[in-house]
């Protein structure tokens, strides 16, 4: 069910939500958080759909804040979606026009669920300093996506400079399985320190940068970052130990091979994770991610410079 409330106020939206709850019954029970999506008109529908998928794991109220033209009179158009049009949640779409477009946080306050966490998600461009932005200040967790930025490298540096506990980036979420596989590989004998590591991935892949930073920070060894053509994603990680190399290769973006020294090559599916899966993952934990913080603020700086030069030559 979709209800349009053009030229409305948040009080009217709230009233309508309560009315729907009374009319339909149990639909709004058991929500665990409010998910605020800050997005432009072009990216709105896709983002709402992803949020609906994720809400099946984490029932939440989804509020999409879409800023329209800043010229003209202030106006709020709202749309409420429940039932089949809203996954396991209820969706409130707020379109802001005129001067109101710059004050999205003001329409959010009355619509947040009582006594439950707020998560803000910028599926595309995010403010320069997310935790200090008006909506970011209201949220316990702020999800950005550096891969969507026009210059991912610069974006990652900005995130590192302005990091506050609760910030997180989907570029980090995307490498969780890779990290799991590498950690599992080190669980096995021979137990030897890693002397060097190399991460190969697209020059525009913030995920590969984070992977290199994570390894550098955790292993305290030289880590090089080999850059492949843009758009190829992450392609390989090599850990060098005294007994040889552990190679995790994903040449085709779907199936990876893991080759520990002296052992047969093992194959495993390692496709790019769906956006909804990544978002659901982010909603799983609402406490600050210390490992991400260290990777971002300390690890990235440890990556060996030569690899960066290699890029400028090629």
């Amino acid at each position, binding site marked *: 069910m979709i209800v349009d409330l053009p030229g409305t106020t948040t009080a009217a939206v709230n009233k309508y939500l309560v009315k729907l709850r009374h009319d339909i019954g149990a639909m709004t029970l058991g929500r665990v958080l409010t998910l605020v999506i800050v997005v432009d008109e072009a990216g709105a529908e896709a983002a709402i759909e992803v949020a609906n998928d994720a809400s099946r794991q984490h029932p939440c109220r989804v509020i999409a804040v879409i800023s329209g033209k800043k010229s003209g009179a202030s106006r709020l158009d709202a749309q409420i979606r429940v039932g089949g049009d809203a996954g396991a949640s209820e969706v409130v779409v707020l379109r802001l026009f005129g001067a109101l477009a710059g004050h999205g946080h003001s329409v959010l306050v009355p619509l947040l669920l009582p006594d439950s966490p707020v998560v803000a998600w910028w599926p595309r461009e995010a403010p320069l300093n997310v935790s200090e932005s008006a909506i970011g200040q209201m949220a316990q967790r702020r999800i950005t996506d550096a891969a969507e930025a026009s210059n991912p490298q610069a974006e990652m540096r900005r995130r590192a400079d302005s990091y506050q506990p609760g910030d997180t980036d989907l570029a980090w979420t995307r490498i969780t399985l890779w990290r799991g596989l590498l*950690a599992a590989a080190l669980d096995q004998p021979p137990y030897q320190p890693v002397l060097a590591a190399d991460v190969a991935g697209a020059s525009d892949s913030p995920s590969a940068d984070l992977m290199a930073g994570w390894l550098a920070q955790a292993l305290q060894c030289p880590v090089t970052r080999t850059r492949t053509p843009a758009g190829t994603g992450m392609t390989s990680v090599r850990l060098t130990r005294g007994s040889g190399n552990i190679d995790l290769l994903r040449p085709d973006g779907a199936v990876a091979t893991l080759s520990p020294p002296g052992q047969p090559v093992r194959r495993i599916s390692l496709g790019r994770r769906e956006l909804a899966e990544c978002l659901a993952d982010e909603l799983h934990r609402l406490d600050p991610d210390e490992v991400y913080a260290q990777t971002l603020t300390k690890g990235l700086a440890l990556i060996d410079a030569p690899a960066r030069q290699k890029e400028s030559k090629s």
Partner: protein
Amino acid sequence: MIPTAVAQGQNPLRDPQDKRLPRIAGPCSLVLFGVTGDLAHNKIMPAIYDLANRGLLPPGFSLVGFARRGWTHADFAKIVRESVRAHARTPFHQEVWRNLAEGFRFVEGAFDDADAFDVLRETLQEVDKERGTSGNHIFYLSIPPAFFSTVTQQLDRSGLSQGIEGAWQRVVIEKPFGHDLDSARELNSTVGSVFASDSIFRIDHYLGKETVQNLLALRFANQMFEPIWNANYVDHVQITMAEDIGIGGRAGYYDGIGAARDVIQNHLLQLLALTAMEKPVSFQAHDLRSEKEKVLSAVRLPEDLATSTVRGQYARGWQGGEHVGGYLDEEGIQETSTTETYAALKVEIDTRRWAGVPFYLRTGKRLGKRVTEIAVVFKRAPHLPFDQTATEELGQNAIVIRVQPDEGVTMRFGSKVPGNAMEVRDVTMDFGYGSSFTESSPEAYERLILDVMLGDPPLFPRHEEVELAWRILDPVEAFWATQGRPDPYPAGGWGPECADVMMRRDGRTWRKP
């Protein structure tokens, strides 16, 4: 820069703060006995695919089927594929499938066929070499317990149970763990003579369910429940597992076993243990199991079993718009069968916390609907400052843990009926973790199979628990054996009349789940 040290159990990539890092097991293969069974088809094979899809299977994982069928590896893959297409929780991805299927092998043979086990050993050695499973093997015995001894002896004889240095061998067994104390001990010594006790994983899939684990969170992570979780406030506890289906094609397994051995001995007594146990020192396997054992060892049957136990057998009746036959009409069941399909039991727990609080356990087939729940029913308020008429409709407060379906927690309490008069009536407050929670959250078997691969035992009952449970049930079974036929009850209802009589005698009633 000095590289961080790596040692066994010391992995610099595993930071305790890194809570999102998935637990991926080390390389291993799983040998499945009983490939053609329902359990393998409906649960185990789909769970393995779902794990692969979630990226939680170790690289190179291999699944080896063993059965008396003239199948090729490809035939076996086809069988698994059918099961995955029909029952997997996560969407089917061709790449994931292709990759998983590369590790499928099939060995033809009977359970007593020594040559077949030699072939199995060679197959596993090949798999170790080709796919790098490093000699780590899980033997999943999804077969009737009568074959356990044959299979474990063959595993022993062929050297499969010892494995190579530095590798582990684990065995997974499913209920029933015997049919009484003696047979349980015998079974344990059979399996235990070949595998070390910490390599034996007994699956009680209820313990893998989210809601059951949530029971521990509810009790021990909150301040508002534990203080009243005792005899001062609790009147009684009802644990119900009702099924709407009959025995289907399982006559051979079910007849002679019955509802109490099939369900109460394992599932319901495990749920009782989790509901009634004291706070464990930690959630380590050892501490958790010790608490469960403590409370199970304090469970006592009432002296008069005639008034505190009930058994029934479903008769013909209308169930959910369908006319269904009785137990004695089922194919393969003798007309003289005295096997019970409904069992109810009252037990007490001799601890300070639970003194005088009866625990009622009931289970049955062909009941009103499929539901499993734990209901903690509280005493009435000692004084009600209302007119008698105002609280006439007020029942007892209750906290209900809904295990399946519709997982969640319900609280039942009195509330004023809106209007001029003061009238208090029972209302329920529901917590459900989303209607489709079960779709996106892992199935019990996924969790349990993953735990076996990781060698993580907290969710698996130990042999001592199995023994304690039989100690509770054996006298009841012995008593029933002298009592002739169980009471018939019409299909589609809530069991035999005498079950209600048993509760009425105590001044209580069964909840309608």
